[in-house]
Structure formats: C-alpha cells, structure tokens
C-alpha cells in the first residue's frame, strides 16, 4: 500500500533534531538568565552597560530561534493553520483591550489558546512566532521572544494538568506570570533600561527610589503586573476553549487526547 500523502505515518518517531534543538534553546535561555543575574556588573545599575544588553538580546533570541527550529517542522497542519489566527488574536485583542481602559495587557490570549489546544511545543512556537510577527510593527517585542515562548510552553503544560477548569486556569496563569515576569526582567532592565509603559515605569522608578538595583526593581514590578495579567489571560483562554463547539475542539491534539482518555475510562 502506498504511503498516505496527507496523514502522518503511524508510529513515526520524532527526529533527534526535534528533541535536541528545543532542549538546546531552553539551555541557552537558562544560561543567559543565570549569567545576567549572577554576573551583572556595577555599571548595569545605571542601565547603560553594553555586554548585558548584547547578552540579553542575543542569548534570549538565539534560544527562542533554536526552540522554534526544533518544534516547527513537527507541528501537525491543523496547528500550523491555527497559529496565524492566534498571532492575530494577540495583536487585535491586545489593542482592543488597551482601548477599553481595562488595566491589563491581555496580549497573549492567542498564545495561551494554542497551548491549551495543541500542547506545550505548539504554545512555545506560537510565542516565538508572535514576537517575530509583532516585531514588524513594534521591534521592541523582539527580545521578549523567550518570555513569550515560556508562556506558551507553560500554558500547554498547565492544560495537560487540567488547567481548562476555570479555577485551575487562574492559579496556573498566576504561576506562569511569576515565571515569565522573572525571566523577562533582564531584557527590560538591560536592553531598554526599564519598562515599555509609563505606568509600569512609575512602579520601577518607585522601587529604584527605595534603593533597589535596576534588575531588582524591574523584577519586582514584573511580579506585581504579570501574575494578575496572566491569571486573567489563562481564565479567558480556558473559557474560550470551553465555548468552542465540540466538533472544532476535537480537531486539536490536547482536547482530542482528553476525549479519548475519557472514552477509555
């Protein structure tokens, strides 16, 4: 019998490259973070040091691209078709929420949605791709690609652990916000010398006035802003997944796997 052109061959093994590259990407991101936190020079307190800026930019972006290179070729077509829609939802809903005076960003709903529907690899890839596409309109999001990948990865991991129930989604989002905020803080501190918004900048300035270093101030600000934002994002994404018609939901890997498990038990 000839091989199907449209269906993946049964039992096809994941190539070694697809396992190694994401692992390498995660290691590069973790090493960059540790290096920046442990070796930050005294001049970094003023935000003008050059090597932390270069290391944060290059290390995080390289890690995110390695992750994408390993994950992207393995994604099923149903997920590849969903990712552009998710990226556009990030942009359109982010701008729309910004215009309603709700004090949240909610610019990663699409990324979390893909993580919930298609798993952590697809979520991480969506985070990186979202930063790449958005950087065509706003280049300052480019160095935050690793943080966006982490949000998608953690959303997929949370979905496996049952985060599609609203109260679990809030807790998972809160924890994701803490992790993503801590990991993204060195980029905000060393590449941009603070934050990208006036309100968050005021918080960082307040911590600086209390005597904290720049990285400590940005990290504390992120720990105030990000958990609440991600808790609401996860809750909204979980409610949207629940609102999807079953026929559509079951076309994506995680809900299909959960339905199969329920049918077996």
């Amino acid at each position: 019998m000839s091989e199907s052109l449209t269906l993946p061959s049964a039992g096809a093994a994941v190539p070694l490259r697809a396992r190694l590259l994401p692992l390498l990407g995660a290691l590069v991101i973790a090493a960059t973070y540790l290096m920046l936190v442990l070796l930050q020079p005294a001049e970094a307190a003023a935000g003008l040091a050059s090597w932390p800026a270069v290391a944060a930019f290059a290390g995080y972006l390289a890690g995110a691209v390695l992750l994408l290179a390993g994950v992207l070729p393995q994604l099923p077509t149903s997920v590849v078709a969903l990712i552009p829609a998710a990226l556009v939802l990030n942009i359109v809903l982010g701008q729309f929420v910004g215009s309603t005076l709700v004090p949240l960003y909610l610019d990663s709903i699409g990324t979390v949605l893909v993580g919930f529907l298609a798993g952590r690899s697809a979520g991480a890839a969506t985070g990186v791709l979202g930063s790449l596409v958005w950087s065509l309109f706003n280049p300052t999001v480019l160095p935050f690609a690793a943080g966006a990948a982490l949000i998608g990865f953690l959303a997929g991991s949370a979905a496996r652990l049952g985060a599609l129930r609203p109260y679990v989604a809030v807790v998972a989002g809160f924890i994701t916000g803490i992790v993503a905020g801590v990991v993204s803080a060195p980029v905000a501190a060393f590449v941009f010398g603070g934050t990208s918004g006036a309100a968050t900048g005021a918080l960082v300035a307040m911590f600086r006035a209390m005597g904290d270093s720049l990285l400590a101030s940005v990290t504390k600000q992120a720990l105030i802003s990000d958990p609440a934002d991600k808790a609401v994002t996860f809750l909204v994404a979980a409610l949207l997944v629940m609102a999807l018609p079953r026929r559509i939901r079951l076309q994506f890997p995680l809900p299909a796997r959960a339905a199969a498990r329920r049918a077996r038990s």
Partner: protein
Amino acid sequence: MTGLHPFTGLALAASAVAVTLAASQWWLSLGMAAAALVLGALAGTARRLAVLSAAVLAPLWLSQLMVHALFDRTGSHVLAAAGPVRVTAEGLAAAGGLGLRTAAFVLVFLLYSLTVDRAGLIRTLDAAGIPAQLGYILAAALALVPATADRLRAIAAAQAVRGAGGRGVAARLRTARLRAVPLVLSAVQDAAERSVHLQLRGFPAGKDRTQYRSLVFRPWERTVSVLAPCLAAAAVVLLVLPRGA
C-alpha cells in the same frame, strides 16, 4: 533598503543594531537614528516611519525618564530636588543615552520592516530551506491582521445594533465579552477549515515545487550578507570584552 534582497537588508539592519547596542555611545546611537530617518525619507516612508516609531518610543522614553532621571540616588550633580524626586545630571545623561540607543534600535528595524518586500521575504525564507511552515505562518498572519480587524469592527457594529455597550466597568467587560467571543470562535473555526484545505494539498510540500516568483540575490549582496554580520560580530566582541572582562 527598497530594492535590496530581503536577506541583505536584514543583515545590514541586524549588524547596525548589534554594533549600536554593544558600543552604547550616544553619538553612535544618534548617528544610526539619523541615518535611518534619512534613508526612510529617501525611500519615501519618512512620515510612516516617524509616526510608527513615535508611537513605540513615547511610552518607552517616559518610562526611562522616570526610572533614571527623576529618582536618581547616586548622581552628584543635583539639578533639582523635592521630596523623593532628585534630578541629577548623571541621571539625565543615563536616560538620554538609553533613549537614543532604543531610538536607533527601533528606527533601524522599523525602516527594514517598512521597506522590505514582505512577499519577497517569505519567498526567500522558503528558498533558503527554512521549513515551509514559517513562510506560511508569516504570510497568513500578515494577511489576517487587517481581515480580523475588519471582522472585529463588523461584530462591534452588530452588537451595537443589539444594544450592547454602556458606561461603567461591568458594561465595558460585557461589551468586551460580546465582541471577543464571536471573534475568537470564528477565527478558530476558520483555522480548522483552512487546515483541511492545506492537508488536501499536501502541505507542507517538499522543497522542489514550482515557484511563481523568483528573487535575484546579486553576488555583491551575497558578500554583504555574510560580511556585515561577521564584521559586526567582531566589533561586538572587541567592544564588549574589555568592559565585560
């Protein structure tokens, strides 16, 4: 950068940003920002470049001013002080340096984004052996942004006819829900239908398929695309090592 191969423009933009970040000198940042504005004017995109970069940079500059200039504890040349506010010459210099460095970064990348042939970039990524999924996602996302914004406007108009809206936090949240839920559901449904069509056409096909568009990658552009990042990497190492070590 109009007329350049997409990879040549990308190599030049990335090299310029890397050197500017590594040098972290106000005069170099100012020079790069000015060069980007001049090139934007020559390419006929000065107005769009200025508007887009102003929208990105205004909140960033405000934030940098607050973080570095208004509450500086370390500077010795105090210009003004009142309560917790302490404006120093050193703080203002740090905020100005960071502001210029960020402006150079934003202007150079936005210039590339505004002048690059986006369809050409996607074709180039495809031809370079990068997984076809990346080209599809970039192309689909860029096409879907205006379509989804139009759909959101249509949903908002339909909900307004139904009487949605009003003042207060609860009414705003209800309005947001009434607009966001149909938008997301229709986007996911469209994606599910699109994936069936993609699978029926054997997506992602192999590398050796017919292409209807070809881009010329001139020999001098190939040289520049390799040479510029290599020189920039060497410059970054030379600039960063003496200070980082």
